[in-house]
């Protein structure tokens, strides 16, 4: 590879830059190639295989003795798709997922925002409290699920505390009631991920231009007016990113649910991930492949829209 020094200086600059650009193209490829290859084999290829399977009714049970690529023997065209789209279990799992995301993410945002505001000022032991608030994020989600399982036992600490506060004996079997189980699952997620929103919003708040807020104060704006007219517009980009990121992850919610209720009672807390995992264990593989394809298509559409803000920010820099 020619270096800058070696190239013939009397030759036009254009030749030098041309050489550099060629090298740039090849070099860039070289750097990203390993990652792209890995993705090709471990993501793209399996997705295509999924697609293939989704047109069959093959499973390790029914296809005993055949290998997966011989699944064409069980060709079923679009019957899987038709069946899935009208399958109430599948559809309801999607609905439950959406419900959880729509509840959990805004709550985490609001609590995180409130906490972030509190942390703008100085107070004793601030660093300690900061670390404590971050801890839930660091707990392995499966373990967090188990902790909440323990907490919400009918003879567990939550009921004990509630009993003390309300002066009435509370023995709600949280995890065995459909609605209450859903609440517990949501609480577990809120507990675990509010610190993330807090962290993001705090850095957003600290980056706010103080002068603008001072100018608003001098012009007579009270706290609420400053928040609505100055702070919030300035925070909007950060809030959008936080919502998108948290939403992205919340769709996949699984660990805590599995450890707490395994999707129960019945199917009350069966989100899409839980549903698919159960089907997987029942060895309904082509069914899951179909569901997988549908989910991937849905999310791809959603992601194009959701990732636009991040894309725009990247292109600005």
């Amino acid at each position, binding site marked *: 590879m020619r270096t800058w020094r070696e190239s013939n200086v009397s030759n036009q600059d254009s030749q030098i830059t041309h050489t550099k650009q060629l090298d740039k193209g090849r070099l860039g490829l070289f750097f990203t190639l390993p990652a792209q290859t890995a993705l090709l084999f471990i993501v793209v290829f399996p997705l295509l295989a999924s697609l293939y399977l989704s047109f069959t009714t093959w499973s390790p049970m029914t296809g005993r003795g055949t290998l997966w690529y011989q699944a064409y023997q069980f060709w079923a065209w679009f019957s899987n798709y038709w069946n899935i789209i009208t399958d109430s279990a599948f559809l309801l799992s999607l609905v439950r997922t959406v419900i959880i995301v729509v509840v959990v993410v805004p709550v985490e945002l609001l609590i995180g925002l409130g906490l972030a505001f509190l942390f703008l000022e100085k107070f004793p032991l601030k660093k300690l409290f900061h670390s404590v608030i971050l801890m839930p994020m660091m707990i392995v989600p499966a373990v967090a699920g188990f902790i909440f399982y323990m907490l919400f036992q009918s003879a567990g600490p939550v009921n004990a505390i509630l009993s003390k506060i309300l002066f009435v004996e509370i023995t709600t079997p949280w995890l065995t009631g459909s609605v209450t189980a859903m609440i517990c699952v949501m609480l577990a997620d809120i507990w675990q991920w509010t610190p993330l929103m807090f962290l993001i919003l705090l850095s957003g708040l600290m980056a706010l231009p103080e002068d*603008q807020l001072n100018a*608003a104060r*001098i012009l*007579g704006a*009270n706290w609420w007016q400053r928040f609505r007219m100055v702070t919030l517009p300035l925070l909007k980009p950060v809030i959008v990113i936080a919502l998108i990121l948290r939403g992205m992850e919340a769709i996949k919610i699984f660990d805590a649910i599995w450890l707490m209720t395994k999707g129960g009672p019945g199917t009350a807390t069966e989100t899409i991930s839980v549903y698919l995992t159960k089907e997987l264990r029942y060895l309904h593989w082509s069914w899951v492949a179909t569901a997988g394809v549908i989910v991937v298509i849905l999310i791809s559409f959603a992601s194009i829209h959701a990732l636009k803000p991040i894309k725009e920010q990247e292109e600005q820099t």
Partner: protein
Amino acid sequence: MANILLDNLVKTFGKQTAVKNLCLDIKDGEFVAVLGPSGCGKTTTMNMISGLLQPDSGKIYFDGKEMNNVPVGKRGVGFVFQNYAIFTYMTAFENIAFGLKIKKLSEGDINKRINEVAALLQLEKALHMKASRLSINDMQKVALARSMVTEPKIFLLDEPLSNLDATLRNVMRAELKNIQKELRQTAIYVTHDQIEAMSLADRIAVMNFAVLQQFDTPLKVYNRPKNLFVAGFIGSPTINLLDAVYDSGDFILADFQNKKQVVSEKNRARIHDLLKQEKVVLGVRPEHLKLSDSVEGNGNELTARVVSIEPLGSKTVVYLKSDSDTGNVIKAIMGSDYRPKVDQVKTLNFREKDLYLFDKISTELVFRF
């Protein structure tokens, strides 16, 4: 339209004292410049007057009313920040309207006032542009307009012109003075630029290291600086300061091989009474120094060698050093076609009444000849 009284204001940040026992008496409608180098406490003072900071001790009075406990938004103060602090997500119009909206003025009133201010500052074209798209000059005008439009009794400006390009700075300087006189607002203008302060202010408050050095009209600050700091801060190029020793009525100039600066009879007695010790500093401004080639023999001449020349168009600044090569560089201002050569020896001429006499230990002005 209010007078301001600052009574012994003190503000410390941790171990650092930002403002020390500041007493200031500003008259109604006066344009006061707070002048000093970075870190001298001027912005802190402004913040205390506006209410953004609470003084550790001391009181603030507007028109005789104590303001210490009055919250920021209710002091009737307008503030223009050095970086303008324009609300980024609003248009220029919405920025200017902000204070009026808070005051719940009617839409008609708001429009009227904004149009008036926009006409005054020539902002009409930019009114509906988003703040982030405005040019720096327009941003400054919007910052001004935003404060002006609420008709505050007191106008605080924190180095508002420092980010502007030079031509606009001069124009805006004149504009500002006119506006202030028209609206008869009491204005406090923070700057580190002494030319700005001298040209704009009715009175200048010179500060250094958290302490008020002097509070006087520009002329007095120029002619009767209270101490070496003020003398050296006002005037461009800075005043020439010569170390000397008082010796039975005359001064021995250390930088000029102990040549004697003879004092005229009429001043001898007073100097003898006023001087507390013998180490002094004599000051003479570059604009009062004349250079010549010949020796006139009246005992006041000193000679020095030219080290460099600065032709500035309308005038020429000549830098010289005394023969002994010790001591500070001496500056003199001559006409635009004066072109000495480096290493030429010139005679320094000045009149006795142009001299300033400072006590070297206390740094205070002892006598003005």
